[in-house]
């Protein structure tokens, strides 16, 4: 173990993460409050119970907003430091101390984590406000806010942790919050099942993280980022590849990447604000965060990095195709989320050149996707919780604010300049076209996939937008039989949407103007851009053409022509996409059914063989006892006779043996 301990010695290697600052900035201590405030609020809401029903939701909003303010303070403080001191570690003491395993509880405040903090708290606060109105008629609104606060706290702990161990705590915390919120209406069995599905799929990913932690500890003797980043230079590539693949598995589980993507669609069972916050803007991007945070490992393990890119590319197309066929507005958005995170994972798999763009897209996506989810929630609010887009149509005239805010998000995700998506997604497409030394095929494959994905994205998002807000009314009656009366949502719901729409419109331009990529450099490192295989203007033009193609196609099919209320049979691909490209069937066939068969066999084996042997032994003993019991007649003379007979027989045997 001594070798491992010596490896933990702090060795500052200013390669991967731009160096670890040794200058302590006392202001970074405030980061503790980022986690503590929502956690306290959550505890208060859960412990006080019904007594907090009247004001609990405002406490939740306040806690989230306070975290955002703390985040802003930290941002200002960090901006005041020179770039090479912007990675601040806050030591909170020793957490675990067992033999060679000594894990300190510490927070790392750096541009990457602070970006996440601001995204989570800002979008989170907006969604808290939105939820106040959205959940107004729900009896357990206080519990909802407690869970939301719990989520915020766990997510902040996840991004602020300075070691994989503490990250894992946050990782599990967001998984728990996600589970609780998906199954918030768990009196509906399908919702409870969806929650369980998400939980189990996440557990599969968590195993990856645990394996990665075990490997990291075995290799480096420590689990904090600084030691791991510093030690990768001395580790074997095989080990790092294994670690990278395990981390990728964790990311796949959390971020709904292929092949663990199946839970995200079902996760839409939760209340819409949950879908917006957890399953669109923040938690599902934790996988991207993990990959980028472990950038040093992936940089040293090109094979793992390639797998990351491949997974991202597959998921990108997968989500896009599924999104084209879904009629449920939330599930279509979920497929879109999956696809967009596929972009981010693809970017993260491209290496250091993609890290900053992945985060960039993550932030803009957080805004416009959250905005669109809130818009979907607003539509459902006005349409009696109807989610079938074939029952929408022409809603733009009834919900002006929802219409325009949704439109901002729509244009942003399409990548129309100057909306936010243009600045982030096009950069990813450009980065995908950048050739890797010796392997030019990768640039072409990943670039093409990203380009085609952009076209499909344009198609399905336009389809969603047109089916909902344009065309004829295809409304059904309300559940109680009365006429639908679509109406705009209250101000508490529209204002967050407006703020997010503003972000969707301008955030991309603002961030690229103020140098977001350079701001991230202390965390993700700096890489000189190489030129893509095609000229950048050509790429932009190609992307816009693909987007325009998808947009026009959708316009012709869903805005101009009549949309049938009952879904047409469609092509084989459509039918497959409607059932998520058979992912559940594949999962069932590959995992669930063999698992159940194995379980049944084991149960049968247990009953027949193990239980049979045990109970058989018991029965045999009982039968033998019944037989022998007759010998116990209570007569001492009988017992004496038995003894004498035994002695005689023994003596005979002994004499016979001795000859």
């Amino acid at each position: 173990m001594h070798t491992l301990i010596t490896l933990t010695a702090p060795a500052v290697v200013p390669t991967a993460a731009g160096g670890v600052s040794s200058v302590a900035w006392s202001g970074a201590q405030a980061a503790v409050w980022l986690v503590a405030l929502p956690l306290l609020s959550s505890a208060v809401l859960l412990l006080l119970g019904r007594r907090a029903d009247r004001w609990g939701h405002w406490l939740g909003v306040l806690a989230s907003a306070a975290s955002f303010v703390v985040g802003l303070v930290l941002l200002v403080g960090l901006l005041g430091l020179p770039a090479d001191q912007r990675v601040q570690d806050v030591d909170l003491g020793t957490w675990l101390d067992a033999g060679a395993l000594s894990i300190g509880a510490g927070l790392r405040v750096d541009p990457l984590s602070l970006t996440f903090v601001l995204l989570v708290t800002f979008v989170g606060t907006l969604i808290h406000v939105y939820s106040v109105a959205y959940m107004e008629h729900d009896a357990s609104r206080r519990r909802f806010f407690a869970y939301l606060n719990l989520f915020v706290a766990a997510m902040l702990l996840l991004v602020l942790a300075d070691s994989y161990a503490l990250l894992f705590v946050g990782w599990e915390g967001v998984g728990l919050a996600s589970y609780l919120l998906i199954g918030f209406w768990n009196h509906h069995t399908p919702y409870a099942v969806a929650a369980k599905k998400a939980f189990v799929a996440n557990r599969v990913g968590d195993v990856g993280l645990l394996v990665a932690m075990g490997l990291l500890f075995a290799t480096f003797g420590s689990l904090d980022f600084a030691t791991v980043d510093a030690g990768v230079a001395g580790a074997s590539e095989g080990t790092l590849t294994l670690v990278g693949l395990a981390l990728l598995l964790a990311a796949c589980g959390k971020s709904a990447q292929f092949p663990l993507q199946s839970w995200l669609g079902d996760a839409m069972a939760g209340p819409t604000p949950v879908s917006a916050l957890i399953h669109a803007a923040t938690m599902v991007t934790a996988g991207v965060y993990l990959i980028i945070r472990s950038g040093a490992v992936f940089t040293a393990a090109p094979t793992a990095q390639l797998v990351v890119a491949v997974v991202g590319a597959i998921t990108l197309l997968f989500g896009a195709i599924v999104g084209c066929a879904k009629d449920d507005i939330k599930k279509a958005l979920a497929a879109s989320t999956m696809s967009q995170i596929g972009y981010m994972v693809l970017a993260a798999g491209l290496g250091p050149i993609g890290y900053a763009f992945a985060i960039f897209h993550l932030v803009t996506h957080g805004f416009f996707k959250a905005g669109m989810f809130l818009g979907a929630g607003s539509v459902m609010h006005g349409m009696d919780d109807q989610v079938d887009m074939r029952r929408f149509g022409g809603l733009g005239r009834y919900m002006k604010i929802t219409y325009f805010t949704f439109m901002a998000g729509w244009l942003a995700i399409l990548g129309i300049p100057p909306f936010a998506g243009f600045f982030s997604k096009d950069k990813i497409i450009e980065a995908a076209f950048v050739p890797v030394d010796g392997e030019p095929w990768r640039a072409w494959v990943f670039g093409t996939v990203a380009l085609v994905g952009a076209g499909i994205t344009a198609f399905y998002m336009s389809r969603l937008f047109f089916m909902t807000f344009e065309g004829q009314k295809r409304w059904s009656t309300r559940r109680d039989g009365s006429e639908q009366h679509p109406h705009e949502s209250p101000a508490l719901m529209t204002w967050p949407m407006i703020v997010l729409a503003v972000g969707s419109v301008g955030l991309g331009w603002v961030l690229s103007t103020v140098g977001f990529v350079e701001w991230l450099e202390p965390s993700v490192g700096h890489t000189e851009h190489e030129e893509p295989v095609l000229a950048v203007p050509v790429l932009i033009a190609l992307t816009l053409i693909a987007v325009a193609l998808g947009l026009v196609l959708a316009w012709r099919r869903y805005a101009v022509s009549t949309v049938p209320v009952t879904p047409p049979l469609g092509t084989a691909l459509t039918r497959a996409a409607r059932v998520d490209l058979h992912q559940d069937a594949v999962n069932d066939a590959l995992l669930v059914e063999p698992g159940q068969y194995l379980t049944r066999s084991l149960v049968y084996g247990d009953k027949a063989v193990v239980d049979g042997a045990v109970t058989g032994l018991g029965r045999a003993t009982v039968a033998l006892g019944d037989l022998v019991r007759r010998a116990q007649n209570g007569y001492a003379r009988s017992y004496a006779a038995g003894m004498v007979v035994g002695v005689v027989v023994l003596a005979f045997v002994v004499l016979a043996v001795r000859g």
Partner: protein
Amino acid sequence: MSPLLTVLPAAAGALTESGQTSTAEAVLFWTLGPLMVLAALGLLFARKAVHAALAVIFIMISLAFMYVAQGAEFLGVVQVVVYTGAVMMLFLFVLMLVGVDRSDSLVETIRGQRWLGALAGLGLAVVLAGVVGRATYGPPTGLADANLPSNPQAVAYLIFGQHVLAMEVVGALLVTAALGALVLTHRGRLTPKVGQRELAERRLRTGGHPVSLPAPGVYARHNAMDVPALGPDGTPLESSVPRVLRVRGQEADARAYAARIDRVLAGGWAVGAGTFTSDESYRGGPDGPVEGAVTIREPQAPAEDATPEEDGR
């Protein structure tokens, strides 16, 4: 011990050169051995437990003979004292205490026990005899050297030397066994002890006589056991006569005696040596005939209320 030893050959337990016993010992063995087996069979088959006990006593005395014949004089005496003298007597006592009950019958009650027991016993005999017969023994040494200066002394050296601890332990065991027997046969007192005081109190409570009964004859001026004493008012006290005499009807009438005594005291006749007589011609007191005039006082007629004695006399 010495009288017993004188009966037996002087060199008890001596062996010939070839390891054979003396002829006298052989005669003893062949006389006693079959009888012992017969007696043992008697124990097995005797209907009465007392007969069985007698058979066992015979076996034990015979064994004592054999011990002595084999040079174990001390053990022979101990055998007689302990087994026939103590153990078997104890058996007989218990037999008398318990009495004879139906379990003395030889009818078997447990199914299969008879043939199983017989088989086991026979098998045991065969096995033991087989072992004894098949074993090879070295030439017998005899006790001539070991028994110096004499058997009891040699045994005593061993018991109080090498085996002294066992001796002590066995003594403790005996004491424990005696105490155990006491405890086992002890019967707890179920009612409070009744002593003299309790008896007297119970007699008083039930209205009995407070003191000892009056002795017969005292106030009746006559000391025969069958004469009731007279109370202070001259009433004869029935209770002063022993109960046996009363039951038999041999009680004397105090009044008749009183009349004759009064007559004698008044100078009437009486036969000598304390013997009363009804001879009217007899003149004299208890010490013999009296010379001179004797005033004869006629006895008074008995009172109507049957109280013939006069007060203040």
